[in-house]
């Protein structure tokens, strides 16, 4: 999907993938889809935890070439 917002947080430690996702979610419009790329093993757990807690939606999650792709929809 070409209109997905790509958040490339591979190989970054600070502020890290979740904080990058939160920053980009705040700037995105409701309904936007964001694709987060992360090499942080913790992202598999902490990204869904935050997304579900706030009430956004995980569209898809998969690992490719050691990079975790998490696609999130901003729903509110």
């Amino acid at each position, binding site marked *: 999907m070409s209109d997905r917002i790509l*958040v490339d947080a591979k190989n970054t430690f600070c*502020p*890290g993938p*979740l904080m990058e996702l*939160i*920053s980009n979610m705040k700037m995105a419009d409701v309904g936007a889809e964001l694709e987060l790329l992360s090499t942080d093993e913790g992202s598999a757990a902490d990204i869904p*935890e*935050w997304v579900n*807690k*706030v009430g956004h939606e995980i569209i898809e999650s998969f690992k490719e070439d050691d990079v975790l792709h998490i696609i999130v929809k901003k729903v509110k």
Partner: protein
Amino acid sequence: MHILVVGGGMGGTILANNLARRLSGELEQGSSKITMLSATDKHMYQPGLLYVAVGKMSTTELYRDQKSLLEPSIDFHVDPVEKFDMDNNSVTTKSGKKISYDILCIATGSRGNAAGIPGLAENACQFYTEADALAMYKKLQKFEGGKVVVATGVPHKCPMSPLEITFFLVDYFKKRGIWDKVDLHYTYPIGRVHSLEPVANWAAPEFDKLGITYETLFNMKEVVPGKVISEEDSSAEFDLLVTVPPHKGQQVIEDNELGAGGFIPTDKKKLNMEGRENVFVLGDTTNLPISKAGSTAHFEAEALGENIAALVQQGEPVREYDGKVFCFIEAGDGKATYAMFDYNNPPNPQAPTSGLHWFKTAYNRMYWASARGII
């Protein structure tokens, strides 16, 4: 070859000085020229604001004349850019001058955006401008005890500041003899007390030892008098709210639609603006997923100085920015530590020591030599 540096903060200043030294021959011959455009004739040591907010530094220590920090060969003007015309390699300044360039370097920085969260600016103390830091200190001086909440917005400048201001508040309240009358509560946007896991693993037990309570996954949604409410449907009541506000890029970047939130899409290694080979971006102005910190701007400026000089002299860049960041962490009680990392190597901070605190204290003075490019 005309190199135009827009912005006279830490990144722009170190880069311009670095280039002026590397290209001294070309500048002397007149085959190259470096121009800097800034919004002000003063240069502020922004990390000093943290100290001003708790009475550890005076505002007079924060400033130097910008021109005094620059190599004499740099053509410096207080005339901020209002319009970028990158298709024609030119900018238009506030005074109406149209300036053409061969290479453009944008280092306009970021700014606190408390207004982005309803009620935050009206109800919280912050320390990202001189006026705000002074106002916070005055408010602290009148505070006699109660519930203090530290709340952090995203993204923010200086990733260590939420921890540092928390530890400094403990020192401040202890010094005033009212620590036993304070309940200090720390909140943080992600699921641990700091973005860097080793730093979080060190800080959380320190909080426990000091009796500081904390709540993670707390992103401010709204502040009303006496209460901060999170997007995660939690809340914290306060008598005093101290915030590290969310930040955004400068208005001129937003007005020229150079990047969402005022942050310019930037190649993480080459540091050129995406789609523009002759436009480079550094410091807080980039959209890179790394710390918005003075050291980031410093190391980016050094990489860019080497590369832009090589472009002028050889036609090709010679190195890539490796993502290097070095952040001191003031830990309170006269101690400090640091975190150093890059794109490939995670940080491994050591236990705080008084020696590192004094080194940081010395760096607060040595900064001016760093801006000049001497250290």
